[in-house]
């Protein structure tokens, strides 16, 4: 469907978005001020769909507020109590553990800052949860608390984070950002750490391999410009580290928190109005989706937005609805109207009502379960774009696209939660019993440029060395292992890495795939002098193409659905092949490729499963079977 803009000022912004260009503060103001919220939402939905398709993520989480005793007295906080006040509480580690149940996948810990807790007590909470519930990722302590630990316990921020990390901390929540201007900080949050402190803590965490969330508290005295400055500062920090997983706009909950909202603010100076307007909520979600081009996920925090608005927000650019949430004291004490606990079923319903795919995730946004019919997996790399680009919504027979890293796609398919997908070859081999091969694939002719080993040593020199291996796919890993063992006869120590989060310098070589490999193939990877293209290594050795991925569908899929699927794939591919440079353009641009480079890259693949490709699959399988050591 085409766009019709009631507000013509949006048209140049839409052009920018279509070309993958970054928006300016002025663009942001136009977006915030428009009355055409439908067009605004459609643009945000467009961008969101490019990032996560129809997926909306949620996590089975438990929020723990270990204490409400706090040495600070922030103006808007109805939560904090002073030690000795009647409803002050402090939870022991045992208390905390008693709140966690085995199905919980993320424990979210934040609280006040009591005067007399020992450092060990904080570490102990993380450690014990991690030990007792290894399935649950610990997301703990806001930047404000980290900074408090740093000052109180006289440890550097890095040291604080390192110790928490070795106790089992996986990620950090984004609270405490408020609004990043000194004006607002001085007026409302004089005791908080401000933009500089907040970003320093988060960037330090990112460098240690701890991804974090970031937030913005809106709907009080801030201006629209200040909201945008806030977003732009986060965008800049993300350019540096890439460690923000998601952005969460938090609607200010007035209650009786003692801020009277003044004139000149974005929310227009109202005294009697209690909560942000739904239009402001939806606009803020949409604008943040459009401004924060480098942050993967935008969260509609239902506890504050209400279930109804959160559900609508899923069509305005949000692709995460948080979780099942246990204790929600901070928001609740200030009068949020949502019920305390949304059961999983209810979350699934909210997401389905919005026409999206409910995807249960872990702390890193790895999908664990998919709760919808008619889902097709999509590898989120540039080389799969030709299969999906020209998929017309109405022609697609109601299939919904879920972008998911190859290894996870294999897992979901094993759980019977996908109808079809472009599978990593290893996953297809493993599930041959239940999958039916379709006549399309991603195969290379001689080189691929997106399955690369970046190394400090030549092949022979890698013997006994540590290799960081992406956990996104098994096929590249197996190809590497076949090459190492059968072609070069060396043994290495493989270790998992999280692309974009780990510090690569701890390895002697790293295997990267997809966009990350493509990017570094162009700009290089600091410290790794040698770059090996695995497909080229294979070709020089076997004189065969290499098949990285194949299309397959569930054997149980009905004939009719299967035909629709084939129709969809072949139509899209044919249309795409006419102009590979253009269809890959905005995706390529994000990883720094020119139109020609994108075109050349995409032309390097064979998308149809022919004789040679089948032969290559057989040969690879034979080598795998002969291989002694499995990675």
């Amino acid at each position, binding site marked *: *469907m085409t*766009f*019709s803009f*009631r507000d013509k000022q949006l048209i140049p912004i839409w052009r920018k978005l279509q070309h993958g260009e970054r928006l300016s503060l002025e663009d942001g103001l136009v977006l915030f001020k428009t*009355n055409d*919220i*439908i*067009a605004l*939402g*459609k643009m945000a*939905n467009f961008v969101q769909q490019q990032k996560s398709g129809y997926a909306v993520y949620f996590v089975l989480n438990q929020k723990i507020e270990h204490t409400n005793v706090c040495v600070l007295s922030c103006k808007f906080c109805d939560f904090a109590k002073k030690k000795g006040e009647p409803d002050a509480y402090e939870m022991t580690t045992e208390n905390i553990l008693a709140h966690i149940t085995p199905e919980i996948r993320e424990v979210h810990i934040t609280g006040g800052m009591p005067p007399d807790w020992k450092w060990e007590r904080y570490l102990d909470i993380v450690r014990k949860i991690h030990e007792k519930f290894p399935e649950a990722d610990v997301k703990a302590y806001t930047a404000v608390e980290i900074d408090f630990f740093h000052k109180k316990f006289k440890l550097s921020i890095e040291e604080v984070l390192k110790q928490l990390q070795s106790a089992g901390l996986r990620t950090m929540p984004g609270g405490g950002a408020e609004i990043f201007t000194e004006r607002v900080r001085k007026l409302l949050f004089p005791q908080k750490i401000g933009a500089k402190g907040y970003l320093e803590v988060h960037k330090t965490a990112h460098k240690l391999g701890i991804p974090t969330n970031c937030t913005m508290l809106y709907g009080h005295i801030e201006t629209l410009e200040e909201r945008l400055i806030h977003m732009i500062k986060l965008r800049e920090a993300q350019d540096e580290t890439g460690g923000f997983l998601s952005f969460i706009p938090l609607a200010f909950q007035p209650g009786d928190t003692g801020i009277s909202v003044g004139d000149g603010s974005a929310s*227009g100076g*109202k005294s*009697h*109005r209690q*909560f942000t*307007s*739904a*239009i*402001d*909520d*939806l606009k803020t979600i949409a604008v943040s989706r459009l401004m924060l081009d480098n942050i993967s996920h935008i969260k509609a925090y239902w506890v504050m937005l*209400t*279930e*109804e*608005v959160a*559900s*609508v927000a899923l*069509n*305005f650019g949000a692709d995460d609805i948080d979780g099942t949430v246990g204790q929600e004291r901070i928001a609740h004490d200030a009068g949020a109207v949502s019920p305390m606990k949304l059961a999983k079923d209810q979350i699934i*319903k*909210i997401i389905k*009502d*919005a*026409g999206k795919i409910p995807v249960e995730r872990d702390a890193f946004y790895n999908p664990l379960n998919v709760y919808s019919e008619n889902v097709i997996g999509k590898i989120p790399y540039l080389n799969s774009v030709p299969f999906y680009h020209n998929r017309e*919504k*109405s022609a697609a027979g109601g299939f919904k696209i879920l972008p998911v890293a190859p290894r996870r796609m294999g897992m979901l398919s094993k759980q019977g939660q996908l109808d079809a997908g472009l599978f990593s070859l290893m996953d297809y081999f493993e599930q041959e019993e239940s999958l039916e091969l379709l006549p399309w694939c991603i195969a290379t002719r001689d080189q691929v440029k997106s399955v690369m080993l970046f190394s400090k040593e030549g092949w022979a020199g890698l013997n006994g060395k540590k290799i960081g291996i992406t956990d996104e796919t098994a096929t590249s890993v197996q190809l590497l292992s076949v090459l190492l063992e059968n072609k070069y006869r060396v043994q290495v120590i493989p270790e998992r890495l999280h692309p974009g989060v780990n510090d690569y310098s701890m390895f002697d070589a790293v295997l990267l795939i997809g966009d990350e490999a493509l990017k570094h193939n162009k700009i290089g990877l600091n410290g790794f002098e040698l770059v090996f293209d695995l497909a080229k290594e294979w070709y020089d050795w076997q004189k065969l193409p290499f098949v990285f991925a194949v299309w397959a569908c569930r054997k149980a899929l009905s004939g009719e659905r299967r035909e629709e699927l084939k129709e969809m794939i072949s139509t899209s591919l044919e249309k795409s092949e006419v102009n590979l440079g253009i269809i890959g353009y905005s995706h390529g641009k994000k990883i720094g490729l020119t139109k020609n480079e994108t075109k050349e890259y995409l032309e390097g693949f064979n998308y149809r499963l022919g004789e040679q490709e089948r032969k290559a699959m057989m040969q690879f399988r034979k080598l795998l079977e002969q291989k002694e050591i499995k990675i």
Partner: protein
Amino acid sequence: MKLLDIIEEVKIGKRINREEGLSLLQKVELLDFGELANEIRYRKNPKQQVTFVVDTNPNYTNICNIDCIFCAFYRHPGEAGEYTYSVDEMIRNFKTAAANGVTTVLLQGGVNPALPFDYYLELVKRTIEEVPEVHPHFFSTSEIIGMSQASEFTIQEVLRKLWDAGLRTIPGGGAEILSDRVKKKISHLKGTSDDWLNVMLEAHKIGYKTTATMMYGHLETDEDIIEHLEVIRQLQDEYHGFTAFIPWSFKPGNTPLHKIIPTYASSTRYLQILALSRIYLDNFDHIQASWFSEGKKIGQVALHFGADDFGGTLYEENVHAEADFVNKTTVAEVIQLIQDSGFTPVQRDTLYNTLKIFEKAEAM
């Protein structure tokens, strides 16, 4: 027909049929729905304005013998909590409301067989004489049918006598879903779809203006919703007697239907149905957002999905309150809610005449 072709038809202002409506309802994504509904909304009402009415919604009796299973409001004669107010008491009630700025009294009650027809006539007459500040917007179709049965006047005669007493508009409640299959299940004593349509038809013939409503989110199918829109569109073609259409979702609390339908219909569904109504009912001037049943926030969003009216301020309301579903507001808040949604609030009367425009500076 392909979805894209239907969308094109709507854009150029062509009327869509049942099948096309069903296609839209089932296949169009939320924001595309909003975009399409806005095309029509701004064609009909190009101003960036949203109207509202300062009204009250009292009840004169909660005694009823109809037993609708979605209703938490009614009591049987003699049951604890039953009440019937005298005309004097109601007039006092209206006077208080008028003193608080109310201009429309939307009065409905149970179908109480013990009340004589004169009671209703007197209520209308005395309201007009004694509380001229308010416009009486009285009696749902069920009550009118009840009056006819109790008095042995025909529907037409009942309506004529009420008209002569001074009544000019009638609320459109009681339509629920105009499908006899569904009505049999949720309100088997209430009369058929044709009964509702017939009262409306007779009223429009005489010159009454009425609203039309739809309550969904219970046992209806998508097809039932389309049928509902279709029949009221047909009726509207004849006399153009409907001022506005008001869809709302069923609220299950405290009703027997709660056992079958435990949850509220979603906000996305509401916005889709609202947008579909705007698209389908091409002969209706106004579509009303129901902040009261959907919540203030979704009420605001609804203004971008085809609604150009925010409904009433509901000085007094008891029916939903009995289902434990309570939303309250003030005139000042309604003005604020509309402004925050990006529109200029306009206070109107029952017949959609402008009473007062609230430009930014005049916000209370």
